């Protein structure tokens, strides 16, 4: 057979593949700006978040970058594609540790899985700042987070005021993370204790996926035609609920309360499709995390918990300065 031409073809293919890899790497390097973190004299803070594509994490990153510029430190920010990739996040955490940062900021997807690495960080003398949600370990010198129980209780308070009495439901985003659980727990607890006339008839989880949350909300509305209100526990869930109410032609009949922001949600509030939502303060969260990291590097004492705060916003205050600053598109 003509093994010669086969070989040549094979060589061409390999060469083509190699070239494309090199080009891709070069492009990626250009895209990232190229600077090697930790190489300079500035203190280096590595942040490993729960994600990076979600608007919320981009806002955290912005706050972290603000603090980095102000406090003159080097900050890197990375996270897995989705908030279910616990294993991938652990790899990122390991890599971050291996870069030997001066401090490490970490938003745990799973509050227990990272314990060995926390111990590792401690033995290397790298201070750890937990952000967004805590870690089941006493290694982190402080935890910068939204008080999700209090924030979701605030959502419940507004739901109770707006609905008065009747049936309501919850579309949750995640039943396995602490944040996801507390968003439901704080809400449910408030209703049980303070709103005897209101009954939570169903709580469904749809992974924060817009489309699936819409389908879930529709099914709940179908099963409970006399439903008065629905609470969506994050951006994707809340937008899904709004979509469901719209598509069922029940706009205005149900009280929808959301969580976080994003343009679709703020538009829904302006258009009256959503009564209001709770927003965390992601910019402050990023800022406080880096600030705490710098304090830890300098050996300062820190409070065990730093509350990064939350706000209730609706049609009336959506354009206020302090609210507009923490809402993202």
């Amino acid at each position, binding site marked *: 057979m003509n093994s010669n031409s086969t070989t040549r073809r094979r060589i061409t*293919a390999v060469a083509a593949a190699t070239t494309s890899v090199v080009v891709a790497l070069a492009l990626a390097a250009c*895209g990232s700006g190229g600077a090697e973190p930790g190489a300079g004299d500035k203190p280096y803070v590595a942040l490993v978040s729960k994600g*990076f*594509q*979600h*608007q919320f994490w*981009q806002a955290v990153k912005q706050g972290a970058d603000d603090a980095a510029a102000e406090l003159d430190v080097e900050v890197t920010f990375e996270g897995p*594609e*989705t908030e279910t990739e616990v294993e991938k996040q652990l790899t990122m955490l390991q890599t971050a540790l291996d870069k030997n940062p001066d401090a490490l900021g970490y938003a745990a997807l799973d509050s227990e899985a990272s314990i060995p690495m926390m111990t590792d960080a401690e033995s290397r003398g790298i201070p750890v700042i937990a952000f967004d949600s805590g870690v089941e370990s006493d290694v982190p010198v402080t935890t910068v987070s939204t008080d999700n129980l209090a924030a979701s209780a605030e959502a419940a308070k507004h739901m109770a005021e707006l609905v008065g009495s009747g049936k309501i439901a919850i579309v949750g985003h995640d*039943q396995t993370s602490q944040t996801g659980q507390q968003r439901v727990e704080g809400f449910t607890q408030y209703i049980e204790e303070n709103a005897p006339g209101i009954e939570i*008839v*169903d709580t*469904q*989880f*749809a*992974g924060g*996926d*817009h*489309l699936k949350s819409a*389908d*879930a909300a*529709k*099914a*709940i509305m*179908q*099963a*409970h*035609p006399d439903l008065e209100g629905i609470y969506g526990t994050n951006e994707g869930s809340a*937008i899904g609920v709004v*979509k469901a109410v719209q*598509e*069922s032609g029940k706009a205005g009949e149900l009280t929808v309360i959301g969580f976080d922001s*994003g*343009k*679709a949600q703020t*538009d829904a509030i302006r258009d009256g499709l959503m009564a209001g939502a709770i927003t965390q303060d992601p910019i402050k969260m990023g800022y406080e995390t880096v600030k705490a990291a710098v304090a830890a590097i300098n050996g300062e004492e820190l409070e065990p918990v730093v509350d990064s705060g939350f706000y209730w916003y609706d049609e009336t205050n959506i354009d206020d300065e302090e609210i507009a600053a923490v809402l993202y*598109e």
Partner: protein
Amino acid sequence: MTTPSTTTARTERAATRFGNRQQLQQILAFAGLVVIFAFFSFASPYFLDWANVKGILLATAVTGIMALGATFVIATGGIDLSVGTGMTLCSVMTGVFLANLGLPLVVGVLGGLAIGALIGLLNGLNVSYLRLPPFIATLAMMMVAQGLSLVISGTKPIYFSDVGGFDQLAAGELVPGLPNAVLIFFAAAAIAGVTLSKTLTGRYALSIGSNEEATAISGVDVRRWKVVIYTVAGLFTGLAGVVMASRLNSAQPGLGLGYELEAIAAVVIGGTSLRGGKATILGTVIGALIMATLTNGLRIMSIPQEWQKVAVGIVIVLAVYADILRRGKEA
């Protein structure tokens, strides 16, 4: 273009040989759908209601359209893992065309479809000419598409609020009472059905799936036709992306991963064999409906999401096992 008579004859023989079995699987899948419908209608007074049926159809549309395309690839004995994130990339590009560049609606929509076709074309080229196994080629495409969606969108959703009429593509009702998304799904299914059974693309897809070597020996340019088949599948991915974007009135760069598995499940429940050579569009439509009906019904009954997944998994096992049982009897 020559149509080697041997292949055609063989394909037709194959078609009759598989005909009965295929019909049986379709009848069984349809019966399954009826049973599931009957069960939920009995279990919940709110299930059998036009508004809810409409909800189920709407929930079927996006995965259903993806599954239509996947049917062609699976017919060749291949697999397409890139439909989920590929769909997302098509949504994002539609957003770029319409919202960012301000192109006319028709151009943006056709652009979205073209991106889908391009994804399919690249998959086809990688499978045919670089000889990558379909699993690997489309797995790579799945990652590339996911990455590009995030890069191009700057990891932010693209909104179509300023693009007049785009949301009507899915939400409008040309036929009163039936959202366009559902209409598009049915139309796409009709086109897919005709393409699979009446055109060379479909016939060769099945022929390649049942015996690739024999098809090649009989004079069919298998490599070229595979590229065509993957491109056709990509077009459906593009359509799914456009419908998804229109329904959400935004392109969400983070969505899509995992949708490919739902699409593959729908295809398999419908009786298309993962070994190739045997495929049915009607089956795929029924398969997609079964998946959506099951999820909807379980939700209406307030069954937690964890158990919903268990139920869907069991249905897949049952559907495929039923298929294997019948095949065993015939042999």
